[in-house]
């Protein structure tokens, strides 16, 4: 091996232990989290709970009890005086003092794919500019270079509207690391828990650790040779160097401690159960583990397998089940982040692509409705315990404080400590602000 090799033989031997010698993180880890939370300079983090298909505002956070449009569910009191939720969200009701509901969001797209693009990028789809998703933009701003984990992890995103989930002109460096995407159907990871794995984190099937170490060593020899020729006695060409450093980071991710973060079996069964056994619940648990380790942005989708929230028929049965998953997973996530002192520095946004019609159709369902719907913000930087905006008694019209999607995205940025007017440079050197809207002061803590 050439002497200028960047990975020593000892590193190589450590590589050979991939996955077998995961550093255990019991003991020192809680201390580290507590210390991190107490640090005033601690970086901010964000979680997006993406509700694919369009959740019904009137059966969740904007109830219309006593009205013909109101539907079957009762509303319940929450911890915040005057703020009422659906009866199937008891855990969230317990924590309503940390939640702020926006009830007057108005958008102009009623097709799933187009609306998803609009909600996530602030722009309708199509056209010259490939706008990045808000998650990519915010994770770029919150980048934590010293964290040897992906900067933006996305759990179980839907399989359509890919542009709405992409970094656009920011480039693939800011793409999400997808866990449990559509390439991996929801499988049982043992004891009935949904399995979540980061794609391509383990060597190819059939390559055992010893052989992987040999391969890496051979690769390293060839790579170093090329970089040496590229440098011609000086520094390697920047593009070749960029390739090399990405590969080094990728190899770093394959090591034990990064993989440990994704290993939910390290959690006690009781904790795993408290989040709910499905993909969303386990995704919320994964979000907590990643936030603890400093990952700037985590997204967890609910309803992504076949637009679960798209309840054109039999809405009350369906939403009851979805609320159960939502309440359990999100409730546990907030509780556990709070216990660790991380809720202060972690901002949560709950949103889908649109709401659902106030009137109930002949199939006992509700249809697409962009004309007055709800989203929720929680945690760090958010003034909880309130609802902003108001819809009419039957939900058909916005009566107070209409809000545009850009305003929501700008408020989210502001809450997480990112200036929404920060610009990124797109094609042709043209600058684009992260969010085109006005932050809603009343929602900011």
């Amino acid at each position, binding site marked *: 091996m050439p002497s200028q090799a960047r990975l020593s033989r000892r590193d190589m031997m450590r590589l050979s232990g991939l996955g077998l010698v995961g550093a255990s993180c019991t003991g020192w880890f809680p201390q580290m989290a507590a210390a991190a939370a107490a640090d005033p300079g601690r970086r901010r983090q964000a979680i997006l709970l993406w509700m694919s298909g369009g959740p019904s505002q009137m059966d969740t956070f904007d109830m219309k009890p006593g009205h013909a449009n109101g539907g079957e569910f009762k509303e319940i009191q929450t911890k915040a005086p005057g703020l009422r939720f659906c009866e199937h969200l008891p855990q969230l009701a317990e924590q309503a003092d940390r939640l702020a509901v926006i009830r007057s969001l108005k958008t102009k797209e009623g097709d799933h794919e187009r609306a998803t693009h609009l909600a996530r990028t602030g722009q309708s789809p199509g056209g*010259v500019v490939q706008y990045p998703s808000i998650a990519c933009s915010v994770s770029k701003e919150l980048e934590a270079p010293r964290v040897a984990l*992906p900067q933006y992890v996305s759990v179980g995103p839907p399989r359509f509207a890919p542009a709405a989930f992409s970094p656009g002109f920011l480039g693939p460096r800011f793409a999400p690391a997808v866990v449990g995407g559509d390439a991996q159907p929801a499988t049982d990871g043992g004891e009935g828990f949904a399995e979540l794995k980061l794609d391509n984190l383990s060597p190819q*099937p059939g390559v055992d650790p010893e052989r992987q170490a040999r391969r890496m060593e051979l690769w390293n020899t060839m790579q170093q040779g*090329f970089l040496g020729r590229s440098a011609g006695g000086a520094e390697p060409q920047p593009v070749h160097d960029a390739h090399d450093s990405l590969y080094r980071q990728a190899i770093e991710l394959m090591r034990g401690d990064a993989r440990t973060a994704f290993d939910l079996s390290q959690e006690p069964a009781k904790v795993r159960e408290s989040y709910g056994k499905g993909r969303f619940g386990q995704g919320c648990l994964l979000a907590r583990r990643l936030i603890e380790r400093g990952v700037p942005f985590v997204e967890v989708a609910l309803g992504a397998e076949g637009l679960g929230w798209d309840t054109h028929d039999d809405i009350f049965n369906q939403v009851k089940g979805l609320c159960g998953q939502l309440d359990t997973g999100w409730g546990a996530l907030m509780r556990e982040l709070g216990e660790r002192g991380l809720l202060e520095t972690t901002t949560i946004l709950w949103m889908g692509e649109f709401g659902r019609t106030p009137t109930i159709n002949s199939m006992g369902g509700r249809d697409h409705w962009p004309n007055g719907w709800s989203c929720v913000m929680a945690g760090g930087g958010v003034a909880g315990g309130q609802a902003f905006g108001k819809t009419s008694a039957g939900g058909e019209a916005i009566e107070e404080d209409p809000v545009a999607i850009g305003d929501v995205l700008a408020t989210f940025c502001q809450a997480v400590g990112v200036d929404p007017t920060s610009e990124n440079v797109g*094609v042709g050197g043209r600058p684009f602000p992260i969010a085109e809207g006005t932050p809603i002061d009343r929602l900011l803590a």
Partner: protein
Amino acid sequence: MASAFQRWLRRAWLPFGLSLAVLVAVLMSGAARADVDMGAADLNDAPDEDRVMIATIDASLAEHWEREGVEQAPLASDGAFLRRVSLDLIGVAPRVAEARAFLADPSPTKRSELVQRLLASPRHAEHMATVWRQRLLPEDDSFGARNSSAGVQNWLRDRFARNVRYDNLAYDLLVSTNGDQLGPAYYFAAHELKPEKLAANATREFLGVSLECAECHDHPFTDWKQDDFWAFAAFFARVRTDDGGMGEVAMRTGRPLRITDAEVGELTPPDYEAAVPPRYLGGGEPGDSPYESRRMQLALWMAERDNPYLARAAVNGLWRQLFGKGLVEEINADGAHLPDDHAALLDELSDWFVDSGFDLRRLMGVLAQTEAYQLASHGSEGQKVAPGAVGHFAAMSPKTLTPEQLYDSLARIAPAPNYGNGSMGGAVLFDPQRDAFVSKMRSAAEDRREFGGSTLQALYLLNGDTIARVTNPELPGAVAALKAPFYSNRERVESLFLATLSRPPLEEERTAALGYLEKNGQGSDLPAALSDLLWALLNNAEMAFEP
């Protein structure tokens, strides 16, 4: 300037892509094809003129290096040149057998012959169609968009295969009405029929002028004003689909898309009081004509022989395709292009291109035969390249492989199961595995001189399914072939280097690879060890770039 008579002649016949001579021939043969092959290669083959132009380019660059005190890099090795020119001209690295034959060929003119061979290959047309489809259509991975864009790809491939004059190609695209699988009118639907989107794309790709900024404010560093942008966009104000709706929707319901022109319709930009009348870039306004729609008038203006932008933008774009960056960044009507280092060369080349009959294929042949194109880049085989040479075309810039180039090259190392079985006339489009690979590996770096990858993409190449399949000794491919007992390890190592990097191994590489096979590839372990070697080569930085 062309005489009035010439202009009339061109206007009268240009829509049919005909010159008088060909018109006569067509009338006599009774074939009323709308696009006759005007490829100069068939009509007035003039290699002498090509040689003069090649020499002119090299002399102009040499003068520039002299002035700037830049040291010219040595010529690239045969292997590096072969890989580079194959990827640039046909979008795929050479097969092992081709590499062997080329390296062994003693002919002093083998590089020129190779260029001609590649330009005549059907893959050249496919590659050019891919390059242009990506320039013309916004990136969109949705199924509907992929389906529709096949029409654009097929149409372009057909034009490039017949080497249709470039001015006709631009004209035909802009006046097109059919958006089904044979027609390019999806161009309009892909940009949602929005004048500002069509204007931004057409000025950028056909005229080499970036007007996007002027959509919202006057251009910060050129003379373009917001008015110029909207006046140009007004040419597209009357574009409609025949069902009055969005083209995209029409495509989904299985109805062929048709693009039409309304008789009336003006464009009032946001924040403007009144509509903006159409104006050509740099001045001049179209008349109202009952026979020629606005976009037809725009297309006619563009395809004028003396249009100050079209030919220059084509030459500059092709130069960028081969050299990684254009001769200039910003084209100006008066010839004061920016930066001005190679402005005169661009104009000379553009005049030549116009005289050749807008022959894109011939132009590509000329550029690929220059000495400048054959210079070494950093890295591949250790030639010394002086710092700073790259920016002046005194050395080649390494260009990142596109996902399509990478996938297609991998398919030559181990055939992909669905490869070329697309439903679209055997095109490489619609291979679901290729599509998945391309969308996973896409780089946002528009400039191929930058490396815009991500750690996730690196993980995908290290551990993902495509490379796993290509290196699998049990599946058809290089490893399965090289398992055969009659090869020596030396031959095996050489073959794998030729298959991946199109060059024989350097001495230290040979030693390392042979040592590896010796140590880990005894008996039944041989397939796995060969697979390891191929895997290491495919993940090497050298593989990710054109040499």
